[in-house]
């Protein structure tokens, strides 16, 4: 069964050109598979510089991998024909982070909706197009008469982001890559946008790759979660397992650092972990070794393989040496059957 959208051993290095010797390893041997017939929401969580945005752009075909391939329905993006790309564009859509940058100030916001309709011939007539657009706007909780015909600077950040969700919905894609869709939106509107993502997945069977630094929203809407650290996967699996009983020291550090909006005061008591060492060059072995409280000698020599510690979870950490090792071919995260 070929995956709908799959990244296999993808590595992406930026810089390193003739003049600029400093090269940054954005993504290191990363694999991920989206199962077409069981659409789910996969959250990719990581700090800034963890490579999560690069992954999103690779899945969208906006950047090409330095090594490894990205497959759509089993076909390598690099080798796809023009027609292949049109189908890919239609099936894999995006929601960007910055609601202020995605609108061309010269046009009214309708431009963002009418262009895909025209380019992909989604409607036969002008009236057909109009009803299509009205429906998707209502689906994201916006009243068409209040939204269409206005310029971007006349709408609030929350409204603009919802129009972007509507745009993605318009094309009836099979996958939506949402790169930090709500991080620039106010708390009160965040829930509505995430809820519409949830309904799109449940009712329309659209798989969603939810890229974020916010573990709380990831926990709320995703089924499986991948925790990225400096380009490599630290831990991945069912969101309940990973959030409720984190195993990788980095995931534990992330979860313990989140200030909870609750009366109990647990956050300030624990002592600060080792101060972050300045970003040394990527040494051999596990990338987290520099900051890991339970670092061992093995960690410094070889990067840890992926240990399958639960039915629906795997961890790249020597603490779980006993568990069976995931073989080469297995893309993360295998869903619990």
């Amino acid at each position, binding site marked *: 069964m070929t995956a709908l959208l799959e990244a296999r051993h993808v590595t992406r290095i930026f810089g390193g050109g003739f003049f600029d010797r400093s090269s940054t390893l954005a993504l290191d041997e990363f694999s991920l598979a989206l199962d077409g017939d069981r659409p789910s929401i996969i959250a990719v969580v990581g700090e800034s510089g963890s490579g999560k945005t690069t992954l999103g752009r690779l899945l969208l075909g906006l950047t090409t991998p330095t090594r490894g391939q990205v497959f759509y329905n089993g076909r390598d993006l690099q080798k796809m024909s023009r027609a292949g790309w049109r189908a890919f564009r239609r099936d894999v859509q995006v929601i960007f982070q910055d609601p202020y940058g995605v609108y061309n100030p010269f046009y009214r916001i309708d431009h963002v909706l009418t262009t895909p309709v025209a380019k992909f011939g989604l409607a036969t007539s002008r009236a057909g197009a109009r009803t299509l657009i009205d429906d998707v706007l209502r689906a994201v909780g916006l009243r068409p008469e209040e939204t269409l015909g206005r310029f971007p600077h006349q709408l609030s950040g929350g409204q603009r982001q919802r129009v972007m969700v509507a745009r993605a919905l318009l094309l009836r894609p099979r996958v939506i890559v949402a790169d930090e869709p709500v991080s620039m939106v106010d708390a*009160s509107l965040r829930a*509505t946008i995430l809820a519409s993502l949830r309904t799109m997945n449940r009712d329309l069977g659209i798989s969603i790759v939810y890229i974020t630094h916010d573990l709380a929203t990831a926990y709320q809407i995703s089924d499986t979660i991948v925790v990225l650290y400096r380009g490599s996967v630290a831990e991945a699996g069912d969101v309940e397992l990973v959030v409720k009983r984190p195993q990788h020291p980095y995931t534990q550090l992330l979860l313990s650092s989140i200030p909870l*909006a609750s009366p109990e005061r647990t956050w300030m008591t624990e002592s600060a972990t080792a101060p972050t060492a300045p970003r040394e060059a990527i040494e051999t072995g596990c990338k987290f070794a520099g900051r890991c409280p339970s670092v061992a000698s093995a960690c410094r020599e070889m990067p840890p393989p992926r240990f399958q510690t639960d039915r629906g979870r795997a961890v790249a950490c020597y603490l779980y040496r006993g568990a069976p090792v995931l073989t080469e071919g297995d893309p993360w995260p295998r869903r619990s059957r």
Partner: protein
Amino acid sequence: MLSVRDLVVHYDTPLGRVKAADRISFSLRAGERLGFAGESGSGKSTMALAILRMIKPPGRIEAGEVRLDGQNLMTLNDEDMRRVRLAGIALIPQGSMNALNPVMRVKEQIIDALRDHGVRLSGRERDVRVRELLQSVGLRADVADMFPHELSGGMKQRACIAIGISLRPRVIIADEPTSALDVVVQKQVMETLARVQENLGASVILVGHDMGLMAQFVDRLGIMYAGKLIEVSPVREIFTRPLHPYTRMLIASLPSLEEKGTFRGIPGLLPLLRDLPPGCAFHPRCPHTVDRCRTEVPTLREVRPDGSAACHLV
């Protein structure tokens, strides 16, 4: 320590007059951590800048009093106000801003603050002072000779904290100090701020939108909406028994790590500050609106010991 009475700040823009802060009043006790939470456009940053009298045209401080240890800062001339800044009230800038001068070393940016406040130190004493300040915020001594672009986000913020406490201020205003910082670095920066506050015995005003951060850091919390202060209570009570409907819905809209599917958004849109709805600004989105809410602007009044709210139904 610090009391603010009926502070009003307006911005005159080509699209009309914007009431960014409208009759804000509160008092800050010695050593207390007071938080102000609010979404974008709620006027929280404007209020913080107004306390330091740093509102630039087209903004203007219309009215209001800010008393530090009894002295009204609004009546001071520019020179005296300049001396109060950093010595009396220090500002920690937003995490996302590049608040450090890109072409000056960290050491020089600490020293020029000391010098302009009349602190005369010999070369050696100065270096000792800089090293102490950096160590007190968890930075290595060699950071002194580094330029801002050589520091990580977290280190830059800690350098700003070092500058902030260099004259042992009585009040520290932190305006979204950890915005755009990763959650792990955010925790270290906030712990530094807490430790430094305890050593100085200063009080802290924390302005921000991250309710979780407020819950874990501040003692008392004020909620702001559309330029007005609509609730002030001890932080534990805000999360257990919120008074104002907006506070209740805001807390309900926060994604929790405990159980799934419990969070839902607040319907409607944030009001535009230049044409606010009549009466209570929240009434178009409030589920319990009554006629009075549409006509009469509710005033902030004490509803329970140490807890006040601006709502007719409370």
